[in-house]
């Protein structure tokens, strides 16, 4: 190594010492790592870099999507006919429910008005195309093709045709990042359909979910369906989330270990629907001390706050 070009190396003008530079850059890296993780205040920096990176990334993804397109184009008549028949069949099976849905909703609304209960929120949203899976091997996220330009904000839930997929966690000008419900420690407040019991389901990171903090003698069976409870102010109530596949009851622990699989095709899909954010909940009533059952209420509130913080 004779140095750069064929000129002698600079003897007197060498800049800062490498060790000083290293210390500086390491300090900056660690600082932005902590700030990004704990305070989430670097979104503007991330968005401005994403503005440059995003087009390149989309172009780099084209070979893969072209192969997908060609594969689906060459899929053959038989497959399509089969799929078509299945879809027609499915449509016919759901037709009775769907046809009465409008009438039921109207009736429900009327009854609720009679009872002077708050009206049910309607689930509106926008369909988005999935661009690619985020490359980060430590988390489960996908990138969709609508962002700030389409009015998407962080915290909106995303569903597919069968159930909840995840939640928008970061928004860029032309794309948004959805964290899947199977991501580690992603939380969804749920309700068991059969018993009506409310709980919170956590992602495990391996494609499964876990229902934590349920007592070992809780009324839970394999095959139970969990739907969103709507207590969090983020997810509308009633969307299917997961189905229980395995229950480990060990007397050594006070809680049962309950494993679920997501109902939506969380790891394989082409389009998802991003639901509009819910109307803000009314402010919580002031806490009154000494009321029975008030000890567990702050706990629930804490969980709710955690979910909302995750969304922001």
């Amino acid at each position, binding site marked *: 190594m004779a140095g750069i070009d064929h000129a002698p190396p600079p003897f007197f003008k060498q800049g800062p010492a490498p060790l000083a530079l290293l210390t500086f850059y390491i300090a900056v890296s660690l600082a932005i790592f902590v700030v990004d993780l704990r305070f989430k205040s670097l979104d503007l920096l*991330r968005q401005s870099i994403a503005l440059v990176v995003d087009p390149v990334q989309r172009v780099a993804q084209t070979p893969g999507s072209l192969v997908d397109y060609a594969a689906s184009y060459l899929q053959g008549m038989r497959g399509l006919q089969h799929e078509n028949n299945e879809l027609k069949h499915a449509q016919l099976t759901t037709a009775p429910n769907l046809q009465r849905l409008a009438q039921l909703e109207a009736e429900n609304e009327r009854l609720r008005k009679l009872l002077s209960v708050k009206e049910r929120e309607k689930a509106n949203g926008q369909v988005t195309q999935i661009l690619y899976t985020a490359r980060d091997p*430590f988390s489960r996220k996908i990138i969709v093709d609508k962002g700030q330009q389409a009015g998407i904000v962080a915290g909106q839930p995303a569903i597919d045709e069968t159930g909840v997929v995840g939640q928008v966690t970061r928004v860029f000008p032309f794309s948004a990042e959805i964290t899947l419900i199977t991501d580690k420690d992603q939380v969804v407040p749920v309700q068991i359909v059969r018993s009506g019991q409310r709980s919170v389901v956590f992602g495990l990171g391996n494609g499964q979910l876990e229902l934590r903090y349920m007592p070992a003698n809780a009324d839970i069976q394999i095959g139970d369906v969990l739907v969103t409870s709507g207590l969090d102010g983020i997810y509308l109530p009633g969307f299917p989330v997961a189905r229980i596949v395995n229950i480990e009851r060990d007397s050594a622990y006070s809680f049962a270990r309950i494993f679920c699989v997501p109902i939506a095709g969380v790891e394989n899909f082409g389009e998802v629907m991003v639901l509009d954010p819910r109307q803000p909940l009314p402010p919580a009533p002031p806490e009154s001390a000494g009321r029975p059952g008030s000890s567990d209420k702050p706990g629930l509130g804490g969980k709710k706050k955690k979910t909302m913080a995750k969304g922001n």
Partner: protein
Amino acid sequence: MQPTFSSSRILQPVQPWFIFFSLAGAVVLNFLPTAHWPGVPDWVALVLCFWCIREFRRVGMGWAFVLGLLMDVADGAVLGQHCFAYVLLAYTSAALSRRILWFPLVQQALQVLPLLLATQVFQALMRLAVGADVPGWGYFIGPVVATLLWIPATFILLLPQYRPVEQDPNRPI
């Protein structure tokens, strides 16, 4: 400016635009959908390591930091994760460059392996420390594949420097 110290060939000086071009190419390679396959190397780390060893006065920790920031945003990772690992990689490569270049290519590759492995391990440690998901073993196969690619990478990235000094179109080969 020789491929190794045992070689007697003197290379042309490197073109700055080629360094930029190769690093940009590595970034695009990283963006390809193949990045999810197990064992696909981190191209940016490989090319960055190469230039830090070859041209430590041109490519240094500043480049590593900027590339790290780009990769962080592109990955959807926590900002600073790639920056930290790449800056450390750039520093160690530059510090070891005089020693590594002394060896023939195969042994160079062996010396590069721990550097690239450390890049991945540091990233994994940073994320696991703050409670991320454990990546599969495929995550740690990448550096091994990158090490195997060290010899072809050296050949390709030094290709422009193998040009003859006098370009004579009528010269017999």
